[in-house]
């Protein structure tokens, strides 16, 4: 079996299986954890603190005015590359066809040349982010394998994708195989590292917000 | 145009006794405009030959002696080969020796028949 057939055949099948299994495992494992019982009287009604939870997702998505000066640049870069990633994954023709084959429906996309521009910008932001991680002493001290590998595998997916679309650096089959293989590795890694923030971020903010709202605090 | 420079080089070599050469026009990326530009640069010379064998072909010397524009077409009229030959005379115009021999034999037979009649 040649590399391309392997990458998008058995390898993709296994990767998607591990991805589904791992994500469900971690979400269920986290959802069934005990929340420490708060024996103080609730300072807000149930609907109010549930609403507070949902509100927190929104409020924590934007920095407080006092911090913007210090964290603004980082936030902007972070938002930008996340949006770039979403646009590339969800609005590129061949990706839409692939996801359509999994879910049974498709949606309109963007011109491929625009996606290429966005990909190059996103890759540049990624490089900037790594630069910061490596040069800032505090962040460097806090960084572990998870941080570097998650960065690396996402970068590999983007770089191989650009190479394949631009037909740069070898026969198309090989470039495409490398791209799909890197996606396979990403899918297998996803549930076991910090990339799970994709699923955790909203529940985590909501739960914290609900807990605080019950205590009568806003955030 | 790069091809003109190449043709000049080949012509000079031919003039100094070197072997003929051919440039296959279909192997070069030429737009229709390039082709027209090349044709007007080389122009038409004194000789134009039409070959009728498995379709029509045109073999004509350009304004530049030694540069022959050869265009082969199939019986449907589609161009199947096009080249510029740098030569004193394109080989394809020469009569084949074996055909000359066969033709001579046929002509001799024809003369013999008319005599008998």
């Amino acid at each position, binding site marked *: 079996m040649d590399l391309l057939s392997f990458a998008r055949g058995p390898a993709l099948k296994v990767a998607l299986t591990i991805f589904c299994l791992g994500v*469900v495992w971690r979400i269920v494992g986290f959802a069934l954890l005990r929340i420490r019982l708060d024996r103080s009287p609730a300072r807000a009604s149930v609907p109010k603190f549930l609403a507070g939870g949902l509100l927190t997702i929104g409020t924590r998505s934007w920095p407080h005015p006092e911090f913007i000066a210090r964290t603004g640049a980082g936030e902007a870069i972070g938002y930008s590359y996340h949006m770039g990633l979403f646009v590339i994954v969800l609005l590129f023709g061949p990706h839409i066809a692939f996801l359509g084959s*999994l*879910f049974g429906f498709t949606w309109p996309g963007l011109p491929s040349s625009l996606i290429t521009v966005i990909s190059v910008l996103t890759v540049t932001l990624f490089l900037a982010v790594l630069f910061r991680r490596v040069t800032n002493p505090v962040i460097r001290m806090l960084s572990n394998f998870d941080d570097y590998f998650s960065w690396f595998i996402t970068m590999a997916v983007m770089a191989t994708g650009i190479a394949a679309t631009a037909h740069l650096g070898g026969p198309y089959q090989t470039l495409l195989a490398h791209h799909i293989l890197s996606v396979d590795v990403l899918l297998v890694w996803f549930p076991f590292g910090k990339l799970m923030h994709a699923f955790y971020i909203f529940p985590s903010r909501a739960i914290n917000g609900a807990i605080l709202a019950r205590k009568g605090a806003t955030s | 145009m790069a091809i003109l420079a190449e043709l000049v080089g080949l012509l000079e070599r031919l003039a100094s006794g070197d072997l003929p050469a051919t440039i*296959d026009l279909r192997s070069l990326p030429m737009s229709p405009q390039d082709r027209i530009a090349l044709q007007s640069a080389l122009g038409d010379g004194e000789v134009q030959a039409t070959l009728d064998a498995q379709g029509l072909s045109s073999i004509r010397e350009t304004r530049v002696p030694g540069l022959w524009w050869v265009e082969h077409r199939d019986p449907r009229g589609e161009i199947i080969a096009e080249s510029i030959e740098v030569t004193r005379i394109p080989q394809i115009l020469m009569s084949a020796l074996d055909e000359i021999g066969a033709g001579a034999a046929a002509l001799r037979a024809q003369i013999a028949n008319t005599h008998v009649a």
Partner: protein
Amino acid sequence: MLHTDAHITVGEMLRRHGISRRGFIKFCTATASAMALPPEMGVAMADQLRGAVRPSVIYLSFQECTGCLESLTRSFAPTIESLIFNVISLDYDDTLMAAAGGAAESARDKAMHDNFGKYVLVVDGSVPTGAGGGYCMAGGRSAEDILREAAKGAAAIVCVGTCAAFGGIPFADPNPTQAWPVTAIVGDKPIINVSGCPPIPEVITGTLLQFVTTGKVPDLDEHLRPKVFFGNTIHDRCYRRPFYDQGKFAKTFDDEGARNGWCLYELGCKGPTTYNACATIKWNGGTSFPIESGHGCLGCSEPGFWDQGSFYAAQSAAAWGKAGEAVPRKVMEVAAAAVVTGGALGVGSAGVSRMRQRRSEQDAIDRKSDGG
């Protein structure tokens, strides 16, 4: 074509068919041009061939649909393509020859014997080995047997069509006849694969002509296909490439995009991974090729192209399992199994975590009551 005057020269044969030296030079020049050979080779090729005795060619057809031979013989400009039949001495072809039965078989045996070590063996169709070779038998002998014997005296073997080159449709899942390509049966002779379903006729004749003129196998790729014809993908030379680059894809056949000639990627075109000369040489004497006529490339010159998923699903659409099986159902099966397993693991992990949580809470309470 299949005369017993095996010793006349090519030139004499051409003359009998009213083809002059000049006409033959035209044919060789056009072939040399199509094969990116030096243009001077046209005259050299013509003169060399004309003076030579016609090389013997044995054409064996096994498990095939005869499309490859049709491609070769039903050409649009017969005087050009069928010239190959004047250049070669086609000493055996069970579809074209007038003889039949024992007479045909002994003609083949005689030709193989007389030209041992020098004849070109052309094969189309795959070779089935199932049922003791019973799925393809001629004259009481199995295809595998006939091939092995014919290969012994061949100067080279030209596998015409994807069936002979890679197994083709008989080889596709589930391969009920246990069909194999020629390369799986014969290992010790030079093999040239001219794949395609069918191959373009000019590709067949060009390859044959080059071999009989030079006696040398042309530059081949890793699938043993002549690089001069199979060195580029359809995508590399497709005239609809600007639409691919701009992301303008036709969504259904005959929609607005299709009528404007947009890229057929989403309609299943396998151009990017298919190596062939369709986009340049085209079909029917340069008339058109599938994409130009509005249908995506099937990838017919590639190994295993029948098992690469639907011809109408975009290349990036998951190509799992058997062609035609609905992917969403498979996705649901996989997802369901994964979710159930993951859920079970999650419950297990949560159970362990909760026990730890309870223990640490109990420890905190104990410490408080100890510490006072």
